[in-house]
């Protein structure tokens, strides 16, 4: 019985071209387009960066080691990276970098005391890189990536020397003899490189599609009940020998199926986006951010999107049932949607690493923030916020389902409670939107 109803819902809905475009095609195309644009601009700026590297990079060097390996590092930088090196006196690195920036040198390399002694004893040496990030553009991030890759590049160079000179060294050491720490100076303060990259890469671009699909799902569900009233099919539906719960369940199941389709299509787009962006970035710079979102990450994101879309459908069905036709049903949802975007923006601009936990928990518990929170939590590995936002969304979903079941009982759907007054309010909304 339920299956018959669901098939009818799906047939009626899926034949609607608007729906196919909005729910299935749009999320796919958005990411594919974003991926194409991103990888194009990344490739372009990487080329610009490479050209600059060919001409030689400028670099401050604070040599606290003064040993054979810091001399080798200097030779490596001059010969293989065509670096123009500015020697600086010892001092607090961020202060020194600020002085360098004034002289248009955007980076500082610190060789700590004991660097050479460590390496000659077969212990790993560490380098510190301080880079200025001018803005959040891809090219400035890519240039910063060149500087922060110095330890890795030097390590590879040194590794070949060590391996060819002696055969008795610890292979683990010989393979990667030098490690590095990169700090970025952004807008005057020190920030984690990885966080900056994620701010640029994901927080701004990726939420677009889930927000779009969630909004569309709500208006779609509102439409599915609005159209039953407008086309006058609701009365027959309610007089059929099917329980009211069956009707609600069928509408939700079909929304669910469409939500699943939409999530899958979004995931395909997202996977394409991630792969195209990370292949165009290549090794070194940036792969780490996308490494965070592994298959489990994608699955969790898909679950969050699915939950949000389901909640949006349920809420859309509930709110839409107060309208009298498609237009007024959708305006009920649209009104709520405008209010709901405020917490979404809060979530989008919140920083899981730096904002106070109470505020983050409050934002996470607002419905519809789950996809964003999950994405951010994955990138910064703070999964508590993802769990909280998904749990609260599930709770709200259950509440709305109960409200919806009550709404479909008795005669409320056909009659409405405050008849005349509500009608005027509805047309007011529609007029104001028009």
């Amino acid at each position, binding site marked *: 019985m339920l299956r018959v109803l669901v098939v009818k819902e799906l047939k*009626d809905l899926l*034949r609607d071209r608007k729906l196919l475009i909005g729910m299935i095609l749009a999320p796919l195309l958005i990411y594919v387009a974003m991926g194409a644009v991103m990888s194009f601009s990344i490739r372009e700026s990487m080329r610009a960066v490479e050209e600059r590297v060919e001409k030689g990079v400028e670099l401050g060097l604070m040599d606290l080691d003064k040993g054979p390996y810091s001399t080798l590092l200097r030779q490596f930088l001059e010969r293989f990276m065509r670096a123009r090196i500015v020697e600086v006196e010892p001092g607090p690195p961020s202060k020194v970098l600020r002085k360098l920036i004034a002289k248009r040198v955007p980076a500082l390399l610190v060789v700590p005391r004991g660097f050479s002694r460590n390496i000659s004893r077969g212990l790993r040496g560490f380098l510190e890189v301080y880079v200025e990030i001018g803005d959040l553009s891809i090219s400035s991030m890519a240039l910063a990536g060149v500087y922060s890759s110095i330890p890795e590049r030097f390590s590879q160079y040194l590794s070949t020397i060590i391996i060819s000179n002696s055969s008795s060294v610890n292979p683990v050491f010989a393979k990667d003899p030098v490690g590095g720490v990169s700090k970025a100076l952004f807008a005057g303060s020190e920030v984690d490189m990885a966080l900056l990259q994620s701010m640029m890469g994901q927080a701004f671009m990726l939420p677009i599609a889930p927000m779009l699909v969630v909004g569309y799902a709500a208006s779609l569900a509102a439409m599915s009940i609005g159209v039953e009233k407008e086309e006058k099919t609701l009365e027959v539906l309610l007089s059929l020998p099917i329980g009211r719960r069956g009707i609600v369940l069928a509408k939700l199941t079909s929304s669910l199926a469409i939500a699943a389709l939409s999530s899958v299509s979004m995931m395909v787009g997202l996977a394409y986006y991630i792969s195209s962006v990370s292949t165009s970035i290549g090794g070194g710079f940036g792969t780490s951010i996308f490494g965070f979102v592994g298959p489990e990450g994608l699955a969790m994101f898909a679950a969050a999107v699915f939950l949000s879309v389901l909640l949006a459908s349920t809420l859309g069905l509930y709110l839409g049932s107060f309208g009298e036709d498609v237009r007024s049903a959708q305006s009920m949802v649209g009104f709520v949607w405008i209010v709901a975007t405020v917490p979404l923006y809060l979530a989008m601009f919140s920083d899981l690493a730096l904002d106070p936990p109470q505020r983050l928990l409050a934002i996470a518990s607002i419905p519809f923030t789950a996809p964003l929170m999950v994405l951010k939590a994955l990138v910064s590995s703070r999964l508590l916020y993802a769990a909280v936002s998904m749990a609260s969304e599930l709770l709200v979903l259950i509440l709305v389902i109960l409200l919806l079941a009550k709404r479909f009982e008795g005669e409320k759907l056909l009659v409405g*409670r405050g008849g005349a007054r509500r009608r005027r309010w509805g047309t007011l909304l529609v007029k104001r939107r028009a």
Partner: protein
Amino acid sequence: MERLGRVNLAVEVKELVKVYPGGVAAVRGLSFVVEEGEIYGLIGPNGAGKTTTLRIIATLLKPTSGSVRVFGLDVVREAPRVRRIISYLPEEAGAYRNLTGYEYLSFMARLYAASRRDAEEMVEEAIRISGLGDRIHDKVKTYSKGMKRRLLLARTLMVRPRLAILDEPTSGLDVIHALHVRRVIRDYARSHGVTVLLSSHNMLEVEYLCSRVGIVHQGRLVAEGEPRRLIEEHGVGNLEEVFAKVVGGA
């Protein structure tokens, strides 16, 4: 005998009152019965309370007071059982635009039929009743108003309800469609022994269709009986004149 007689009532409306939440008293103490196998017509002007009454019998609205039974079942307390034996054609009803007429009928048939075969039989019968021919495979959104009404009437009757409730089955249709609809209702009710309760503001069509009529005015029954008998009793030419006489001029 007495008990059996009561069970054979298809519809029993007693002292029915319906006040809408906004405060409009649409039905104010309406009582009538429909016997099994007859075609009963509720007639009256727009706003008389016909649709409200039919919606209550179809279990869609709850009475404010009074009681309604369908084949002995209470429409409030036993609504799910009532829904299994009735079939309701609402005033101005529509069908799902993106489905074809055929798909719409099969969807409906499978909600009622016990097996796939039964469902197929129902659909075949419905296609015949509708007289839509090959157009049955076109999408509903391409149908004219008359075609839609014929499709909906076919779906109402194909499920072989014990009671068919038809609200204004011909309103807004041109002569050809209206004639088709009237003929289908009469033939189907006769050949299948289906009880029909219909409403109309067209008092002339019920003379042709109905074995008995009830005239409703402002939520109350003002006259009831066989059309010919009513006309004779009031010494007038047709039901419209009967109405004018009972309501008192106007």
